[in-house]
Each structure stands twice: as C-alpha cells, then as structure tokens.
C-alpha cells in the first residue's frame, strides 16, 4: 500500500528548478533510502513532504492526506530528524524530549512514559538529566532522533542522521532505524554514505539535479549496476594514442584519465581485461597497479550522474 505519493511535484527558487516534475511513491512499512549529491533536491523534497516548503505544482499525499490541504494532519503523522542537531543545550536530554513531546500534544503519565521510552530507545536513559553540551557527537545525534520519535510517528524522515559521528554510534543509529521500521514506521533515510543506505533500505531512490534518476530495490539497482563494472589502472606513460585505442574498444563504455590513472567503465571486466593489458603492452605502458571493481550503488550513481555522491 502506498503511504507517500509524490505526483509531478515542481519546486523553483527564483529561476532555478530545485525539484523538477518528481514522481515517487513510498510504500507503507518500507525504508526508502534517498540518495543524491548536494543540490540534488533531496532536502527540498523532504521539506515539501514535511510541509516546511511550499509546493509550486503537483501533489504530495501522506497516508492519503494532502500536504497542501491539510498540513497539520500530515505533521501529526511524521517525525523529522533534521540533518543538523536541533537541540537546546541549556536543557537536559529529558527536558529536550519532553518539550517537543508537549508540542505534539502529549501530557501527563503518557508524556512521561513516552519520554522515558524514547530515551531508552536511543540508549540515553542514564544520561536523561545531563545537558547535551556534555554529550559526544554520537550521543547528540541519538538525542536528536529521540526528539523525533517519542510520539510514535507513522512516518520518520531522517535527513543524514549520522553525519560526523563514531562508528559505534553509527551502528546504533542504523540498528535503531531497522527497529523503528520493524515497529511499523515508514522511514525515509537520506545519506551521502552508500553503505548506510545499503544497510537499512529496502528500496533506494537516487536524485540528481531535481530529477529522480533511478529507483528500485537494491537488487534491481545492482542488476542495473552490474552492467557498469570498472577497471582502474596506474600506467606509465599514458599517451593519447593509448587512450584513443582504449576508447575505440567495442566493450569499453567510457574512459577517464587523470595523470597516470585510467578508469574504464564496461559491462564485463573479466571479458575485456585481457584486451586492456594487450593494448597497454602495445603502447609500451608499464602497469604499476590494476583494480577491478564489482558493481555497487556508488558506481551506478557515478555512471548515472558522472560524479560521486560526495561531490
């Protein structure tokens, strides 16, 4: 069942198109990994789903409710974990969660129970009385999550929740995402880290320059990426004639050269490797190192957009 339905959504800032006729569905109970480099339109899309940013045209429905027509109703259903820490340093962890819980309308015994539950969930129950100023980066990130989930939202939107934290806290957060999903929440998870998205998402959507350029299960995307293996070699000298011959090879899709480093994108490295070595030998290029990369989402992204996620 479709929980979020984004239909032909457009958002402009002055003359710049930030989101360009975006169509995307998120199924109920799934974790959707939303990938894209800076300026891809991820944050604008999230902002429009949350009712933070107005939609120029198109329609977004969350749980069958139009964001444009009933923003308050939609906001009641969701919990946003912003990319940057959104906490009060002068309040304790417990006071932070309590304040936001009150704004969601919780009160009395239920309020106390949900605050305790949220702190327990992120592993900060014994730090409840301490102020975030004394916390590590990872603990602050976890508190940032607690402030968004204490009202048990149907939809949780996490905008790069692991930026700048240690591996232990990252694992804790990723495990939390999986647990929240098992508890019934639909999650949209954005990140620059492909491996995180691969670890938690059931489906992945890739955005670039306001467009959705790929969307599917990890398996579907891997199959697509499988046609995009990569050979990277360090050779010397790298002559123009060498590069030209590599480019003319019928099984090599694209060749990029930077100094003595040559990267080739091709459907099958195994089948073409012998030819590559032969061409290098013919041009008297000595090979210092050679690497064959298996297909992954990163290489798919690179191939689709011509740049890496963290560009």
């Amino acid at each position, binding site marked *: 069942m479709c929980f979020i339905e984004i239909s032909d959504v457009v958002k402009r800032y002055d003359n710049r198109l930030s989101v360009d006729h975006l169509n995307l569905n998120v199924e109920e109970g799934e974790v959707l990994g939303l990938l894209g480099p800076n300026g891809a339109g991820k944050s604008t899309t999230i902002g429009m789903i949350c009712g933070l940013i107005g939609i120029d045209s198109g329609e977004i429905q969350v749980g069958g409710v139009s964001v444009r027509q009933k923003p308050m109703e939609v906001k009641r259903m969701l919990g946003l974990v912003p990319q940057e820490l*959104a906490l009060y340093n002068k309040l304790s962890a417990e006071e932070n969660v309590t304040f936001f819980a009150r704004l969601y309308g919780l009160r009395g015994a239920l309020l106390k129970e949900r605050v305790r539950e949220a702190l327990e969930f992120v592993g900060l129950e014994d730090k409840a009385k301490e102020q975030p100023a004394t916390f590590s980066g990872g603990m602050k990130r976890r508190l940032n999550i607690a402030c968004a989930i204490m009202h048990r939202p149907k939809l949780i939107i996490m905008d790069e929740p692991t930026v700048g934290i240690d591996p232990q806290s990252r694992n804790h957060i990723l495990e939390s995402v999986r647990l929240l999903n098992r508890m019934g929440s639909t999650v949209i998870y954005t990140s620059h880290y492909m491996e995180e998205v691969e670890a938690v998402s059931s489906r992945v959507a890739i955005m670039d320059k306001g467009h959705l350029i790929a969307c599917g299960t990890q398996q579907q995307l891997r199959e697509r990426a499988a046609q995009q293996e990569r050979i990277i070699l360090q050779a010397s000298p790298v002559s123009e004639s060498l590069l030209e011959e590599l480019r003319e090879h019928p099984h090599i899709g694209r060749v990029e050269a930077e100094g003595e480093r040559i990267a080739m994108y091709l459907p099958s490295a195994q089948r073409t490797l012998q030819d590559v070595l032969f061409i290098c030998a013919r041009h008297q290029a000595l090979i210092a190192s050679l690497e064959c990369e298996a297909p992954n989402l990163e290489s798919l992204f690179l191939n689709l957009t011509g740049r890496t996620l963290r560009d």
Partner: protein
Amino acid sequence: MRTIVIVALNQLKRTLRMRGVLLNMFLLPLIIIFLLGTALSGAEDIGSGTGGTIEPITLARVDNGAPSVLVTDFLGQEGVSDYMKTVQAESREAIQEMLRSGEVSYALVVPPDFDQNVYSGGETSLELIRGKREPDNQIAESILNPFIDTLNDRIAAVKELGPQVLMAYSNDPTPRVRVQDGALGARGENYTTFQYYAASMLVMFMMYAGMTLSGSLNGERDNRTLQRMYAMPIKPMHLFAGKVVAAGIVSGMQALTIILVSKFLYGVDWGEEPWMLVGVCLLMIAFTMGMAVAVTLLTSSHMQSVSIIQAIIMVMTFLSGGFFPFEGWLQRIGMFTVNHWASESVLRMMLHQPTGRIGASVAVLAAISGVLLLISLALYARKGYAYE
C-alpha cells in the same frame, strides 16, 4: 493557547539558566544606579526622597569706602545668611587671591557712597566677581540678583518721582529676599540623583529585554530547532507569540526587581501611583517587544539584530539625558525618544505630580508603543518568521 504557554515556559527556563543574561539584566542596572547615584549626588541625598539641601557658600566682600548699611543689612537677613556666609576682605586684590585659592566662592565689591547714591537716585554699581565653581556662582547670583533688581527699582523711582518716594520704603528700608529649595513637585519635592538614574536605568535596561527576544528568535533559527518545530503540528504564530510572551515576562521581572531593590536598598521613592508605574512598564515592554520583532525580521543575522538594538538603546538613552541631563537643542531632540517619555512619566510619579500631568506623558508613551507594535505586526504578516 497551550502551544504559547509551552513555548513561553521553555524559553523562560532557558533564559533563567543563562547566568550572563541574568547578571546583565538584573544585577547590572542596580549596580549602575548605585554607582551613578552615589557619584553624582551628595551623600545626604541618598535615599532621602526629598529635595536636596543647598550647601552654604562663602562670599567675600570689600567696601571701597564706608561700609554699606544696605548691603550689610541684606547679607545679615535670615534666609540669606543661611546660604551665604560673608567674610570681609581688605581689597579687591585680596578678594581675587581668595577666589583663586578657593577660600571663598563668590565676591562682591561695594563702591564708595553706595547707600547715598541709592537714596538719591544717582549712578552706582555693585561689582560681582564669579568664582571657580559654577553651582556656587548660581547660588550666589540667585540670592544677589533679586536684591540688585530691587535696588535698581528704587533708584529709578527716586530719579523719576523724587526723594519723597523714599517714604514708601520707610517701613522696609532693606529689600528682602527669600531663598528656598526649588519646588518642582506638587509637594515641594525635588527628585534625587538616585531617583533620576533609577528611572532612566529602568527604562534603558527594560529595552535590553529586546535583545533577549531577538536572541531567542534568532537562536531557534540558528539551532535548527525552528525547523524541527515547523515540522510539528503547531502554528508559527503561536510559537512566535510564546517567544514574545516569555521575553515580556523576563522584562516584567526585571522591572519589578529594579523597582523593589532600588526602593528597599537605595530608598528610591517611586511615587504613589503603583498602577501608573505598572502601566509605564507594560508600555515599555510593548515598545521593546515591537522594536525587537521589527529589527529581527528586518535583519538577516543575530549579530546584525543585536548591534542595531544596542545602538538604538544607547543613542536613545543618551539623547533622552539618561546618562546626563541635557539642556537646549539636545534636550529638544531627546523629546523624540521613547526613553524621554517613559522617564518623564516615572519622574512625574516620583515628584507626586497630579495624575493628569503623569497621564500626559504616559499617553505619548502609549502612542509610540502602539505605533511600533502595529509596525512589527505588519512586518510579521508580511515577512513571517522563516526557519532559514
């Protein structure tokens, strides 16, 4: 309504945990009132709540001829000798030396045949020599000038009407001058330095609550908590109102602290119109909140807002005579500041002036605050409180 209360309580809790803010808003004004009040007033004025008394000054007198009976009688009068002690000098040079050394404050040179010339309507003149201290000069001249004016009247009368007119003065041969404290208030009271600075610092520091509000509005934006709250089912107007209410409460607490502590610790008399005083404080809160909202919505960063609000507070306090009272054109410019009308209202209460006169100042203050509040509301409606 619930959201406003939740946001206001949260803001209050955080503000009251900021030691720097508390010191600046609650302790600093009391220290400044004490320092200015002590430095710029006589010790006996502190806490008296009534008009300051005039310290007697010393007048050096030299008679170039037989001592003048008219002058001697005048200077010996009760009400004159209380404020001006007289010492006899031998010569004009001696007087100059005494003035230079500060031994005396003012000097009077009586010409020869002074009394005779007065009685005959002839030409004569007293020479007045000013000393080094302006306040003493003013006291001496405020005593001597009426005496000289009266003598001039007599000389003119004798000249025009003849010596028989002297019969009219026979019952009062020496002009009488009464010297008394200025009666600025209805009860003949004058405000003390402590009262003056308590009023001006109350007004100035209440305006600093605007910086707290601006800081809190910008702080939510910088903290990204505003973005989080805008993704919650609350109305931005309620959130905004909660912040304003919290800053208003802090400002009210600050006013109450300044008034009560200065009253009981420094003995400042705030008058007998408590509700009027509450009204002035509420109007100042309204003005401050309006100013902070307008500046915050018109600027793009916290630093910008703070700098502008700080500049407004300093310039208005200065022009209104909050640091030192002005006369002339600066005083006239000061009348265009909110500080002037707020301080004026409070000072009139301190002087126990009629309610109507106090009300006139309060009405101007209300008009200024009202206009600024309307401007800030219009700005909010137009620009909103954006989260980035």
